[in-house]
């Protein structure tokens, strides 16, 4: 998986000076490369670490002290063997034959040791860099479930996952992505549930990733995503270990990338966007209600402003007379056409949202006040915006907050629906819905239709689509496993 270049490899020679210089040169004189020469008996040894990437206590207690004080070895034969057997028994010590491999281990936070006369370096995993503690989820809050989210460190994430799936069938394969960044990533699956065909397809796509750097899971998403141009992505994202674990239980494959708390899940179906952890912790009828509510919110968030514009401009007879009179009285006082008004307010809403996301939290309240009072109240009072339009925007904004994962496609589609509704009325809105439906139905990520199990209808998978069956009958989740096409 590692994308080695075709450059010639530099092998260790057994001469401590030549080898240590070669390692130092590989880092081009970086200030944070620590190279220390110590004596193991009478044999000179070089230790290499990156400052701040290793656990100092482990280095002193586990390497320096044993080498210099406990085992003052005099016999210099088979040094690597002795070092391996005596230091850090049980850890995954690796032997490296080339300078490049050793340098890569040092970058990863390993301690690399070169002994005079040995043509292999010994690499100890002694990582100990500062990292963020396990926090609460930022974008997938819940009421009754776990309050732990993935962290930036991939090893912590494996622990979080292992704590939830205590089974040997949980397979976690490590790969390295990015020719320059050498980012560690993990492919996770349950070997007894995942289909080998699905795993092969995903692995092949990951193998084809040819990037210079992978600094987040978003970098590899387009490579895993289905190749059709589509509004909706068929690669799921979660920061919740419990959601991730539940997806693996359904036979899916997860990918964790070091440096980002957001893990990827493939394949991801359209209906998954409307599921949440709380659905599995509350009663089935409430879960059904919440799922229907989320679907309604998706429809409102994407089409309501467009439909409102279309109705006001082309089909006022749809609404009851009293409501229509109220709306037309309000909109007639504003200077802009209703379509421009809708586009402008939604654009302002997106600006406020983006500002809320990017700005320092300390000034968050100021933006809220500006958004609510200046743009909202003052604009209506000044007669720039009609109050009904503001209600529509507010409803749309609240609805889109319910389906956070769909914000990207919904935000774009909303503008599209406003334009098409303003020019062609409900006719265009319905055609837009038709196109959206075709778009959803046309994607088959990894052979499983994105619109499944609704269309094509899969009876076996219906236990967890809209209605979630009671746990007394719902022994094993089978969403993906139940689907054969």
């Amino acid at each position, binding site marked *: 998986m590692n994308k080695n270049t075709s450059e010639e490899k530099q092998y260790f020679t057994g001469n401590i000076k030549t080898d240590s210089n070669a390692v130092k040169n590989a880092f081009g004189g970086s200030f944070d490369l620590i190279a220390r020469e110590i004596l193991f008996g009478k044999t000179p040894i070089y230790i290499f670490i990156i400052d701040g990437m290793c656990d100092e206590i482990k280095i002193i207690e586990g390497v320096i002290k044993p080498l210099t004080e406990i085992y003052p070895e005099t016999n210099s034969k088979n040094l690597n063997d002795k070092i391996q057997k005596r230091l850090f028994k049980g850890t995954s010590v690796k032997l490296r034959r080339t300078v490049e491999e050793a340098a890569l281990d040092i970058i990863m936070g390993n301690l690399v040791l070169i002994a005079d006369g040995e043509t292999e370096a010994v690499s100890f995993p002694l990582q100990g860099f500062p990292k963020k503690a396990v926090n609460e989820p930022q974008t997938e809050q819940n009421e009754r479930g776990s309050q732990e989210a993935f962290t930036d460190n991939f090893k912590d994430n494996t622990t979080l996952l292992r704590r939830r799936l205590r089974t040997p069938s949980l397979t976690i394969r490590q790969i390295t992505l990015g020719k320059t960044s050498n980012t560690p990533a993990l492919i996770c699956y349950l070997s007894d549930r995942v289909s080998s065909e699905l795993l092969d397809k995903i692995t092949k796509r990951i193998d084809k990733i040819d990037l210079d750097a992978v600094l987040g899971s978003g970098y590899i998403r387009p490579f895993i995503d289905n190749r059709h141009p589509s509004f909706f992505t068929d690669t799921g994202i979660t920061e919740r270990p419990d959601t991730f674990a539940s997806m693996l239980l359904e036979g899916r494959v997860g990918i964790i990338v070091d440096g980002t708390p957001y893990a990827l899940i493939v394949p991801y179906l359209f209906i998954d966007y409307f599921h949440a952890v709380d659905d599995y912790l509350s009663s089935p009828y409430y879960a059904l209600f919440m799922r229907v509510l989320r679907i309604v919110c998706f429809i409102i968030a994407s089409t309501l402003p467009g439909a409102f514009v279309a109705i006001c401009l082309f089909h006022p007879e749809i609404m009851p007379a009293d409501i229509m009179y109220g709306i037309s009285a309000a909109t007639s006082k504003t200077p802009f056409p209703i379509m421009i008004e809708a586009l402008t307010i939604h654009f302002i809403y997106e600006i406020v949202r983006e500002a809320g996301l990017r700005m320092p939290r300390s000034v968050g309240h100021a933006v809220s006040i500006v958004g609510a009072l200046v743009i909202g109240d003052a604009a209506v009072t000044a007669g720039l915006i009609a109050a009904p339009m503001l209600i529509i925007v507010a409803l749309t904004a609240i609805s889109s907050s319910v389906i956070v994962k769909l914000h990207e496609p919904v935000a774009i589609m909303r503008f599209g629906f406003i334009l098409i509704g303003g020019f062609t009325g409900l006719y265009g809105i319905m055609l837009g*819905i*038709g196109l959206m439906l075709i778009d959803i139905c046309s994607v088959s990520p990894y052979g499983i239709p994105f619109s499944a199990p609704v269309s094509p209808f899969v009876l076996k998978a219906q236990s967890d689509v809209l209605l979630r069956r009671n746990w007394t009958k719902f022994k094993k989740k089978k969403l993906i496993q139940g689907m054969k096409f």
Partner: protein
Amino acid sequence: MNRLGKISTFQMFAVLLLSRIIALFTFMLPSTSYLPSGDRIITVIPVIIIELVFTAIVIFSLKNCGNKNIISAASDISSVLGKAVSVAYALCFIWFAGIAVSRFELFISTVMFPNSELYLMTVILLSAAFYASLKGPEAIGRASTILSVLLGLSIIFILISVTDEFEFTNLKPILTQGLTPILRFSFYISTRTVELITILVIAPIIKGNIKRMTASWVVFFGALTMVILFVLAGVTGEYGDDQIFPLYTLTVIAKFGIFERLDDILTGLWVLCAFIQVSFLIFLSYFSLKQSYKKAKKIPVSFICTSGVFAVYLTTSQTVTSFSEIIGSFAQDILFIVLISVLPLLITAINFIRKRKSA
């Protein structure tokens, strides 16, 4: 074939349902003919019988073609015949798609945008249908399944909403004008639709029992039509007899809560039904040509077919009267009969004779 994807019988059922419902209920009667509502209800029975006969011919032809469609069977006889048949069916689908667009445009221009030029709307519809046709039969089939559920629920909702308006005194005695107008009207209804012809071409990519699916679709649709016509007759009485958009008339009368009319629900669904029908027919015209012209590229050929549909629309969409004259013409009967029975039976007979000779 695999690259085009497969469509299940359930999805095909949904596509046919949406296609037929918009074709039948948007424009039911030629404005020149008249049939009382009572007679119109019992017309459904001969329609079902006629369509089952045509279904039998379709199934018989397909059975004798092996697992192929009628175009491949013709190609087995001679490549020239195969090409001619594929072009004939492609043109047929383009024609019916053009008719569908014209019918729909007449409906839209009457109920949604009176006195407006709708060329732009038609171009938008055709662009959307072109895009959908490129996505293949799987996508169209899956979308149709969802839409047919919505359509079914909407029809049930509309029918329940008009129950207050139902008057038994509106129902007319049947057979007051004899059997001949009923049979003539049944034949007219049966030969103005394209759904059974599509089976002859799309059969190889349908997964499941085509015979059972087609027969059950004919009977189900007949039953649905009968219910709608019965409610229509009971609600509208004589007023409904000369309505060219019968289901729409029903929705205008329907009331629910504060909503004084429900026609916009139907209009919205009608847009989606037309979109599905036209997309499916554009795909089929490409698919027909692809059978004999293996090098035919999907995007350019589909685009040419879509342009053909637009040309048919421009020719046929003038006024309701001229449109009803075109679709009521004798040539339409001949076109249907040739494509659904004469050509398939001829190809089947030639194949049969060739097999006998080689044996």
